């Protein structure tokens, strides 16, 4: 079982765990990215996520294939949500089932790091003072206020 998708609905971590669960695995690793209330010292009220969906799903598929090459036999399910998310909402979830814990954890880490480097998804943060900014991780601390 390997699956990745961009979704517009709420992500259910329990559903992802159910998908990867199997008696084959000695470990299931779950990563959740969630919307936090502060970024770069500014109070955040919510984030609009958008994507180049067809390319994002194609990059996610490539990441899953690369994870298979690196970590071998496993189950891996990835969902990234787009749309307007509130504080605490789950924006991305990665569930990995593997024979052993080290590979389950390493694979999950590999997938989220690759997503951050190459999957075309963008964040428009909204702040309590009514301003908004596009997040550019390469320019942390240097954003253009809108």
């Amino acid at each position: 079982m390997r699956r990745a998708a961009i979704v517009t609905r709420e992500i259910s971590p329990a559903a992802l765990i159910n998908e990867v669960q199997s008696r084959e695995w000695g470990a299931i690793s779950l990563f959740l990215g969630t919307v936090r209330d502060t970024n770069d010292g500014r109070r955040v009220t919510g984030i609009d996520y958008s994507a180049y969906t067809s390319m994002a799903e194609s990059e996610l598929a490539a990441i899953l294939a690369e994870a298979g090459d690196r970590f071998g036999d496993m189950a891996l399910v990835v969902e990234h949500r787009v749309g307007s998310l509130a504080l605490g909402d789950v924006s991305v979830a990665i569930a990995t089932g593997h024979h052993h814990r080290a590979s389950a954890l390493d694979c999950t880490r590999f997938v989220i790091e690759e997503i951050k480097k190459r999957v075309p998804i963008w964040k428009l943060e909204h702040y309590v003072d009514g301003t908004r900014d596009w997040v550019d991780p390469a320019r942390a601390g240097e954003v253009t206020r809108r």
Partner: protein
Amino acid sequence: MSTVTVQLFASYAESFGESFLKIRCEPGGTVGDLIRNIRTLPGAHVLPASPRVAVNRKFASTEQRIDSGDEVALIPPVAGG
């Protein structure tokens, strides 16, 4: 002379005020040629020194040729997660 439709997203779409740009592209033109033409347009100040470009949903080098019918997009700094 032909034109290429370039998709824009997020901060780039806001800066150019469009979701698509029609850019002139000579036959055999490359991604680098396309970027040079885009830089002449209002709103191009948003582009970094080396903007990422996708051709047919894959990241492309500046040397990659663009053929008619290719799906071309300018990719702002990604921020998934």
